[in-house]
């Protein structure tokens, strides 16, 4: 991993379309400004990790559980 030291107000260029700027440091947290093309996906890491974990969990299922579930769901339960 590339490690750089930056001060508030300083920035980093990544490629020719992403700029990261250190806005301020306060109470152990760092505020960061990011300029990137509109379509570029930017996520907080813990949010991305949570979705990854949920997707992994969602691959662990059994066909017989799905079958009996589908039977229960199609017997009008969802009309409630």
């Amino acid at each position: 991993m590339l490690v750089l030291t930056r001060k508030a107000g300083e920035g980093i260029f990544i490629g020719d379309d992403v700029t990261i700027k250190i806005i301020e440091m306060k109470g152990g947290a760092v505020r960061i400004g990011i300029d990137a093309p509109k379509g570029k996906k930017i996520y907080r890491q813990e949010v991305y990790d949570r979705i990854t974990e949920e997707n992994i969990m969602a691959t662990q299922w059994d066909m017989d559980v799905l079958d009996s579930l589908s039977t229960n769901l199609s017997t009008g339960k969802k009309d409630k």
Partner: protein
Amino acid sequence: MKTIQTRFGEVEYNPDNLLHFPAGMIGFPTLHDFIVMPNKKKGPLFWIQSIDDPAVAFVLTDPSNFFLDYKVTAEESEKNSLQITDDDECFVLSVVTVPQDQKITLNLAAPILFSPKTNRAIQVILENSNYKSKTPLPA
């Protein structure tokens, strides 16, 4: 037609009729193509099987079956990924987590946007919303 071995046995599919995820599912960036499996049973749930990894299959549903006011609109960049324009339809699907106790949850925080026209799909994260990745069905 082609066949693959999956953890559910042999599955036959038409390679011209796959659901294509240009960026994969989140956490599965290399799995681009899925078979949409026809429902054996009636009901709102169906599943998709990766053709790249036989162990990976997701249960999906149309979330409006359960959450009437759940709305997600595709952003411009997302429409580009789906290769559709403003006039084309874009459907929303949710990944369903199916535990052994059958208490299923929907991942409303990371819906799948799907274009029936291009057969492309992307999973997006609704970061600035209150939707949960583990949303139980309404009681």
